[in-house]
C-alpha cells in the first residue's frame, strides 16, 4: 500500500436514511470487499442498515439519503445537522425530493385517505422535499441511485482533505467520451441526456435507449430547445411534461420546463 496520507485519527462517518428506496445506501453495502477497506479508513459511527446505531454522537461527515416527508423528519434532520461538521446529501430523494415528490403536485391528504383505512394514524407532510430545503447542505451528490464509485470518490476526496468534485456537465459529454451513437439523432428516441447531469457514465444510451433524467438537471441547460426537439419527434405535450416530471420532478429546472410546456 502507498504511504498513508490520512491523519492517524479516523474520520467519523454517519449514514442516515429518510424517505427512500434504500438504494443509495447500497452504494456502500455493494462495495464488495472494498467495504472492509472503507471500514479501516473511516469509523462508521451510525449506519442503521449496516448495524451501527448511534445517531447522537458528533461526526465529521454525515451522508444523508432520502427526502423529508413527515414532521418528525424535519426535527431529525436538524438534529443531524447540529451533530456533523459536513453534511452530504446523496441521491435524487435527498437532492430533489425524489420520485415520491410527484405527490407535491397532488392532494396528499386525499391520497392518504384512499390508501389507508386509518388515515389519522398516518403522519405525512403534503410535500416530499430535499434535504437542503431545511438545513445547510455542504455537498450534493445527484443520481438515482448514486454509484459506489461516486461515493468512493467523495470519501477519498475528504480523506485527502480536498473538496469533492462536482460534475454538473451533461450526459451528452459522457456519451461522446464513450464514443456512443447518439440515440436521439440516429434513432429518434426522446433522450433527456442534453439536459441531464453527468455521473452515471451514459448508461442508458450505452444500452441503446433514452436517458430518463435520473441524475437531475445539468448546469446551463436549454430545456426549451429540448422540448422543441421532443415536439419535432412527435411527442404529445403530456408526454413531454412526463419526460421532465419523473425521478427529479421537483428539481427547479425540470419543474419549470414542465410548467412551461403545460401553459404553452
Amino acid at each position: 500500500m502507498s504511504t498513508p496520507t490520512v491523519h492517524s485519527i479516523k474520520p467519523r462517518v454517519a449514514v442516515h436514511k429518510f424517505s427512500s428506496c434504500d438504494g443509495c445506501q447500497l452504494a456502500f453495502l455493494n462495495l464488495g470487499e472494498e467495504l472492509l477497506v472503507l471500514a479501516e479508513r473511516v469509523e462508521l459511527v451510525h449506519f442503521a442498515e449496516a448495524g451501527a446505531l448511534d445517531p447522537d454522537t458528533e461526526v465529521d461527515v454525515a451522508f444523508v439519503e432520502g427526502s423529508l416527508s413527515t414532521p418528525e423528519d424535519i426535527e431529525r434532520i436538524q438534529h443531524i445537522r447540529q451533530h456533523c461538521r459536513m453534511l452530504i446529501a446523496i441521491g435524487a430523494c435527498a437532492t430533489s425530493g425524489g420520485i415520491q415528490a410527484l405527490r407535491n403536485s397532488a392532494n396528499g391528504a386525499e391520497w392518504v385517505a384512499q390508501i389507508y383505512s386509518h388515515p389519522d394514524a398516518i403522519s405525512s407532510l403534503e410535500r416530499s422535499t430535499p434535504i437542503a430545503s431545511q438545513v445547510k447542505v455542504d455537498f450534493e451528490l445527484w443520481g438515482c441511485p448514486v454509484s459506489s464509485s461516486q461515493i468512493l470518490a467523495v470519501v477519498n476526496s475528504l480523506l485527502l482533505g480536498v473538496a469533492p468534485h462536482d460534475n454538473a456537465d451533461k450526459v451528452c459529454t459522457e456519451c461522446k467520451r464513450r464514443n456512443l451513437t447518439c440515440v436521439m439523432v440516429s434513432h429518434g428516441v426522446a433522450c433527456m441526456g442534453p439536459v441531464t447531469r453527468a455521473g452515471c457514465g451514459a448508461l442508458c444510451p450505452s444500452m441503446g435507449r433514452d436517458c430518463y433524467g435520473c441524475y437531475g438537471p445539468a448546469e446551463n441547460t436549454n430545456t426549451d430547445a429540448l422540448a422543441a426537439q421532443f415536439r419535432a419527434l412527435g411527442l404529445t405535450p403530456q408526454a413531454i411534461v412526463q419526460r421532465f416530471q419523473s425521478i427529479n420532478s421537483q428539481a427547479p429546472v425540470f419543474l419549470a420546463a414542465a410548467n412551461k410546456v403545460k401553459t404553452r
Partner: protein
Amino acid sequence: MTEQKRTVSIHVPVLTRVEGEGALDLRIENGEIVELRLRIFEPPRFFEKFLEGHSYTEIPDMVARICGICPVAYQATAAQALEKLFGVELNPWAQAMRRVFYCGEWIQSHSLHIHLLAAPDFFGCNSVIELARIAPDEVRRGLRIQALGNELMELFGARSVHPVGIRVGGFHHAPALSQISAIRDKLRAALPEAEALIRWAASIPVPQDNQAFVSVAMHHASDYAIERGQIVTSDGLNIEADAFDTHFAEHHEPFSTALFSTYQQQPYLVGPLARLNLNHDRLPERVKTLLAETGLTLPSRNLFHSLTARAVEILLALHEALRLLEGYRVPDTPWVPVTPRAGVATGCTEAPRGLLWHRYEMDADGCVVNARIVPPTSQNQGRIEEDLRLSLLNLGLDQPDDALRLHCEQVIRNYDPCISCATHFLRMKVERG
C-alpha cells in the same frame, strides 16, 4: 417466583440491519405478553397513485424505485403483467435472460442478507465489520458472491440498483458473447464458494423453534419458480396470478404504514423457506445433494432455517444462470414490438423476499388508470408478529431483557423484511368522498 411477575417493556426504536425504518414494542406483564408490535413507520411514498397517467413504457423504470435491493423483481413483475395484457410473446432469448437477470438479484440480495444483516447476530456481532474480524474468510467470500450477483445484473441492466435494461417486450440491449463468456467463467468459479457457503450456513447453531404456518410461493411445472408459475400454498391451493386477490386480502393497522395480508383470515409465510418447502423437488440434482448433506429436512417449520434456505437458493441461482447461458447467442433482436390495449394486467414473480404481485388497469393508449402492488414484506408482516409471540413463549419470557430483545431481532431478520417495499401500498378499491 418474583421473576415471573416482573413487567418487561422493551422498545427497540430503530431496528438495525433491516431495509427501511421499523420499530418493535414488546410489553410483558405478570408473565404474559400484553403488547407486541412490529411498527413500520417508514413514511408512505404513494407509488401506486403517481403511476396513474404514466405510459407503460415508463413503468419498469418507475416501479424499480420502490426498492433499491430488489428492483429487478419490480421491473420483471410489471413487464410480465403488461406483456400478458398486450398479448406479447417474449422471444426465447428474452424469456431465458429474464430468469438469468433475476438470478443475479437473488444472488446479490441473499448474500447481502446472510452476511451483512443476519449472520452477525449468531456470532455476537453488531455488524459485518465486526464479523469480518472473527470470520474474515467467510465474510470476504460472501462479499465476493454478492459482487458477482451485482455483476450479473449489470450485464443486462448496466447497473445493479435501478438497472436500465428491461423494457416491455424484452430487453433494450443484448450482452455480447465475450461478456457472457467472461461471466460464465466467474459463475463456474463461484460454485465451490456457494457450496461452502451452504455448509457454513447450515453449521451455524440455531434455536429449535418449530411453528405451524401456511407456506405460499409460486410453483412451476419444470423449474424452481422465480419469474413465472402458478401460486400455490402448502394447504393445497393452486391458482393463476389473476386469482390472487380473491384468496388473499389486505388490511391496514393504525400503527403501521404498511398493509397486512391474510390468507383465510390467517397470516402466512412467503420467501426463501416457503419456496424451499414447496419447490425443493425442482432443485438441480447437485443442489439437492448439498441440501441433503446439511441434514435439513423439508418442509421445515423453523424460520431459523431461512439463512440456509437463502444459501441454497444462491447455489440454485448460480446453476440456473450457468445452464441458461450455455450456448449463448446474441439474438436478432432483444425485444419484440408492443401494441398497448385497454384492460387489467396482473403479474406475479418471486422477489428475493417472496411473492410479489402487481395489478394494473390500463387505458387504450397504454397509460395506467390505477395500480396495486402487494410486496412480500407486507404479506409476511402478520406472520412476523405471530412468530415473535410464539417464539418468545418458546424461549421463555423469564429470560433477561437483552436476551429477549436480541431474540426478537433475530426472529424479525429471519424474514429479511424490506420495509421500503412494505410501505406505501394501497387497496385502490377503497374510495372516500
